[in-house]
C-alpha cells in the first residue's frame, strides 16, 4: 500500500460565525492525484490553505509524515513583481535553505522555460503561474497542492503544467489539485473529493464521480 504523506483528521474552519469548512478527514498517499471539486465558495481554497499550513484550522489535526514536505501553488500567482524570475527563485531557494540556491534556481528557470531578465510583474499570466509553480516545487516537496492551477492557462501551458505534475507523481509524490474542469479531473485524477458549502459531499474514483455528478 502506498505511503500516507499527509493526513487531516476532522479539520474545520470558521470565519467568525461563518462555517467555511465542516470537519473533514483526508489522506494523501504517495503516487496519487486527488482532485478537489465543488462550486465557488465550497471551501476548496480554505481546505488547500489549511493543508498548506497557510491558514490555521479552527479544529482537527493535520499531520505530515516523517520527512514529507508540502509545496503549494495558490490560486493567484505568488511572487515578487519587482524581482526577475531568477531573483525570485534564488530568494525562495535561500529561504528554503537549499544548497546551491543559484544552481537550483537556474535549473528551475530552464525546466519551466522562464525568461531570466524580465521583472516578474511584466511576465504573461501563464509565465507567472509557471513561476509560482516553480517556486512551489523548490525544496523538492512530496506533496503538491495546486489551487485551480490551469484556470488562466492556454492549452500548451496546461499540458506543460500537467507534465510537471505527472513527473512529480512518478517520483513518488502526491498531488491535490482543485478544478472546475470535469474533463481535466477525469483525465488527471486518481481520486475525487467533492465539497459543497464547506461539507464533504463525495469521495471516490473519477468514474464514480462522473456518475454521481450526473445524478439529479
Amino acid at each position, binding site marked *: 500500500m502506498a505511503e500516507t504523506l499527509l493526513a487531516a483528521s476532522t479539520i474545520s474552519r470558521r470565519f467568525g460565525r461563518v462555517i467555511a469548512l465542516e470537519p473533514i478527514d483526508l489522506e494523501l498517499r504517495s503516487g496519487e492525484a486527488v482532485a478537489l471539486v465543488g462550486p465557488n465558495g465550497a471551501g476548496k481554497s480554505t481546505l488547500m490553505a489549511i493543508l498548506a499550513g497557510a491558514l490555521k484550522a479552527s479544529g482537527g489535526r493535520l499531520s505530515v509524515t516523517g520527512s514529507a514536505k508540502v509545496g503549494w501553488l495558490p490560486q493567484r500567482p*505568488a511572487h*515578487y513583481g519587482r524581482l526577475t524570475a531568477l531573483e525570485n527563485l534564488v530568494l525562495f531557494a*535561500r*529561504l528554503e535553505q537549499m544548497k546551491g540556491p543559484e544552481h537550483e534556481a537556474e535549473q528551475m528557470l530552464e525546466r519551466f522555460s522562464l525568461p531570466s531578465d524580465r521583472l516578474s510583474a511584466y511576465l504573461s499570466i501563464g509565465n507567472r503561474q509557471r513561476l509560482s509553480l516553480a517556486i512551489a516545487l523548490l525544496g523538492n516537496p512530496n506533496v503538491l497542492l495546486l489551487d485551480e492551477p490551469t484556470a488562466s492557462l492556454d492549452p500548451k501551458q496546461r499540458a506543460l503544467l500537467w507534465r510537471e505534475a505527472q513527473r512529480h507523481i512518478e517520483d513518488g509524490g502526491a498531488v491535490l489539485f482543485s478544478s472546475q474542469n470535469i474533463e481535466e479531473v477525469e483525465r488527471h485524477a486518481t481520486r475525487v473529493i467533492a465539497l459543497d458549502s464547506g461539507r464533504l459531499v463525495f469521495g471516490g474514483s473519477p468514474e464514480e464521480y462522473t456518475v454521481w455528478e450526473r445524478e439529479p
Partner: protein
Amino acid sequence: MRTLRDAALLTRKDLVSLRRAPLVLILLACYPLLIAGLVGTVAGYANSRPRVAIVDLDQIPPKVEVAGHTYDLKDMIDEVAKNVRISWLTKAQAAQALRTGEVVGVITIPDGFINQLKSVASSPEVQFETSQGGISSRVTQQMQALIYNLNRKLQEAYLEDAIGYISVIRNGGTADFLGSDYKVLGINKARSLLAADKKNPDAAKVVRFLDTAEGALRATEVSAHAVAQPIKLATATRNGRGWLLSAQMQAYALALTISILALALGAAVTASERDENVACLLGRGLVSRVSLLAAKVALATIISLAVGTVILLAFGVIVEVGDIAGGQPWQRIPLVLLGVVLFGAALGAIGTLIGALAREGRSATLGALLVALPIVLLGLIPREIAPPAGYVSDIFPFSHGERFFSSALYDRHPWATIGPEALWLLGLLVLWAAVARLAQPRLTEA
C-alpha cells in the same frame, strides 16, 4: 541565527524592489520634506505677532502732558507694542472681535485714565481681557511686557522730573509744581548767604546742616539716575541663524520627514507582501513572523538613515556656504544619526503594524499618512499648553525624536537629554514591535 538571515534576505529584496521603483522613493522622500517645509512655515507664523484690540474710553488726546513732559500716548503704545499688532476699536467692536477670534485680547483704557495719570496720586488701571485659547498665557505675558515698557517710559519721565526738582533745590532756579511756578533760592546760594552773615552765631550750624543736606541730595540725584534703569539690556542683532536654519527647524525637518517616510514605507512594504500574495507563502513556516517583522523594521531604518543623512548634509552645506554663525556641528552628526536609527526603527514598527492591519497597499499607505499627521501634530503642541497632548504624544516616537535631534545638534551637554530620549525610543520600538507581532497572523494567513 536563521531569523536574522531570513530578515536580511527579505530586507535586501525590499531594497532591490525600491531601487527599481525610483519614483516611489523620490515621492517618499520629497513628500515629507514638503510637509516639513509647510509645517515649518506654519510654526514660523505661530511666532508672529497676535492681534490685540485697544478700547479708548478716555478719548486720549493726541498730546498728553505728564510730569512736565508732552507725550503722544498712542504713538508710545504703538512703539512699545513690538510683539503684538494693535487695533484701536470701540468697545462693541472689540467684544465682537474677541468673540470671533479676530483679536486674542482687549485692553480697555478707562474713562479718567489721563487725569489719574497726571495727578500722580494713585496708579491708573487698564483692564485686559483675553480669550481662553492656547496662546492666552503668551498674550498675557506680552501685555505685561507692553505695560512694563509703558511704565518704564513714564518712570523715566517722572524720575527726570524729580531729578530736576532736586537740582533746583540744590542750585536754585524756577520750578513748575502742580501747574504753578515757584522761584527757589537753592541750597548752595542759601549756604553762601549764611556764610557771609558773620554776626549770627547759629549760621555756622545751619551751613553745616545745608552741607549735609546738599550732599544727601547729590547722592539722591545719582541714585535716581540709577533707579531709572537698575539693569540695562543692550540688544544687538547679529548675523545669527534664521528660523529656517535653526536647530529646532533641523530637528523638526528630520523628525517630520522620517516620521512620514518610515511609517508609510513600513506600512506599504508590509502590505505589499499581501498584495503580491507572498505573505501567505512566507507565513506557512518558510519565514518566522519575527523575521518578517524585523525585515520591514530594518528597511524603514535603513531608508530613514539614508534620508536623515541627506537632510543633515543639505542643511550643513547651506549653513557652510551661507557662512552662518556657529556653522553646522559636524562632529555631532553621528550622534544624531544614532537617534535617527532608533527613531526610524520605532516608526517602522508602527508602520508594520498598520501594514499588517490594512487590507491592501493603498489602504496601508493612506492609513500610515492618517496616523502620521496626528502623531506629528501632537508632538508639536508644547506640553505647557496642553499637558494631555504631551502624555499621548509620549507613546509615539515623534516628540522623543525631535528632542533627541535638537539636543544632539546644539546642546552643550546633550547626554542628559538624549540618554532618556534614546531609552524612550528603544522602549517604544519594543512596544510597537510587540504589538505589530501580534497583528502578523492577519497579514500572513491566507
